[in-house]
C-alpha cells in the first residue's frame, strides 16, 4: 500500500520516492498545498478502491495516518 501511495504522491510533488516515509507530513515535509492534497485523496479512492469522506480523510496529516485510514475502509 505504501508504494502505491508514494506513486500517487509523486504525480503531484516533484520529490524522490525514497524521501517519503510513513512519518512524513503531507504539507510541511512533502510540500502539498491544500487543493493538491484533496485531489490526491480523490486519486486514492480509485487506487485503493474505497469511498472516502472528504472531511474525515483530510484530517490525516501524515503518510502513515492516511494509510491506516485507508486500510480501515477496506
Amino acid at each position, binding site marked *: 500500500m505504501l508504494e502505491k501511495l508514494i506513486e500517487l504522491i509523486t*504525480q503531484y510533488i*516533484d520529490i524522490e520516492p525514497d524521501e517519503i516515509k510513513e512519518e512524513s507530513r503531507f504539507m*510541511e515535509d512533502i510540500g502539498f498545498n491544500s*487543493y493538491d492534497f484533496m485531489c490526491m*485523496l*480523490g486519486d486514492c479512492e480509485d487506487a485503493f478502491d474505497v469511498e472516502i469522506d*472528504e472531511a474525515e*480523510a483530510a484530517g490525516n496529516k501524515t503518510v502513515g495516518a492516511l494509510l491506516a485510514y485507508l486500510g480501515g475502509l477496506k
Partner: protein
Amino acid sequence: MAEIATLKELVYRADAVFGDEPFVREYLHRELRDKSFRTFRQDCDCFAVWIQEHFPNGVHAAVIGSTSYEYLTAWFGIQCSGNVTVPLDNANPAEKIADEVNRSDSEIVIVDKRHEGDIEQFRKLCPQVKYFIHLHEKQENMLCLADIISEYSGKVPDSSPKENDLAAILFTSGTTGQSKGVMLSNGNLIDNATCEPDRNYRGQKRMTVLPIHHVFCFTCDVLCALWYGRILCVNDSLMRIPKNLKIFQPDDTTFVPMIAASILSKMQLAAEKNPDKIAIGKETFGENFSVIYTGGAYLSPEIIKGYEEFGIDIAQGYGMTECSPRICTGVKGCPKPSSVGRRVPGCEIRIVDGEICVKSRSVMQGYYKNPEETAKTLTEDGWLKTGDLGYVDDDGYVYITGRKKNLIILSNGENVSPEEIENQFACCKPIKEIVVYEKDNLITAEVYPNPDYASENIEAEIQQKIDDVNSGSPPAKRIAKLVIRDTEFPKTASKKIIRSLL
C-alpha cells in the same frame, strides 16, 4: 432579451423546451444519475405547494448545502412558490449561519449532511424558524425533502411571482465588518443569465465546481444550464475534480484561479516525463473540453499562456454579487489576456474617479435592511459603485487595477494600487502570498515565502524578484521595504486575505 421574467418561468420554459433531456447529472456511489428538466420542474412544483400551504403569506427560506439535485430542487421550489431563497455558505460555522438566518428573516432552514448535527443549536439561536428540512436523509428531528415531494406529487402551485419581486438574498463575506445581504430580484438574475447570445449550447456539458451559494456559480452554471438546455454535471467534492473531469467529459467548466493554477502545475509536472502536452491536456480535461471560465480573483497571463501549451483555453471574466454577477466576460482566445474581457450585452460601464461604475438590469435592489450601505453603493440614478479601480481600452476591453478601499495614497500625493504591484508576483515560485501596503510612508511588501520551494536563500531570491519588478516600474510604484512572515496571512471564509488585520 429573454421572453421570461422570473426564475419560475425559467424552470417552466426549460421543461416546455427541453422536457426529458438531462438537466442534472451526478456520479453517486459509482453510478451516473440523470434528472431531466421535466422531473426537475415537477419536483420543484411539489415543494412549492408545500411552502404555499405552510406559509400562505410568504416566507424566506435558507438553503445550506453543497451542490446536488436536491439542493437545486429546494432552491427553485422556493422560487416556484413565489418566495425568497437565502443560500448560505455551507463552510461557515453554525453560529455564523444562525446569524445570517436571523438577519435574513428566514423561517425555513434546509440543510445537508454537513450541518445536520447543528439543528438543535439552530433551534435555540433562531427561534423564528418554523421548519427544518434535510435535503437527503430522513432524520428524527426534521423533515426530509424527498418525503415532501412524494406527498405532494402531481400538485402544481398557483403562485405568480413578478420580475421585480425579490428572489434571493445572498451574503457577501466582505473583508471588513459584518456580511451584507445582497437583494437580487427575479429580473436581475434572469437578465444576467440570458444576456449573452446562445452559442448552440443545448446538450453540452458544463461541470459545476464552485460553491453553489456563490452567485458566479449559480448564474453561470445553473441558470445558464436551464436557459440554454445544458447538462449540469455536479462535481461533488474538490477532491474529485480530476476524476470527475474524466467521468463527465465536460465541454467547459468554471474555476477560481487557484484551482486553475493547481491543475496547471500538475500538468506541467507530468510534461517533464511526457513531452506531448496536448495529449496531457486531453488526458486531464477529456476529449470534449474547450474552455475554462474563471472569475472571483486575478488570473495571471502566465496561467493563460501555460494552459495554451496544453491546448486548453482559459477565459477570465469579471463581476460581483451585487451585479448578479457578470459585468464582463472573457472569450476563448482573448487577444488581451491581462483584461477581464468586454462588458456583457445590456451593461453600461463608466469610470468615475478611477472607480468602475455599472448600470444594468442585473444590478441589485440593495442590501437587505441596510439602507446606509445601499446608499454608499448605489447612486440615486441606479449606478452601482463596484469599489474596483480600472479602465476600459479603445477596443472595449476592461482592466482591473485594484480595490478602491485598498488604494495607497503616499504623502507626495501619489496613488498606488497594491493589487497592481502584487499581481506582478503572481507566478513567482518563491512567493506563496504577498501583500503590499504603506508603512511610514514607504511601499512595503509583506511576503509569506512558499514552503514548498527548495532554496538555500529564499529571502535573497525574493528580494531579487522585487528588484526586477521595481526596475520595470515607475518610481512611485516601487517596493521600498520587504518584510518576511513565517505564517500565512489571515483570510476570510472565501480565502481572501484580510488586509485590515495587517
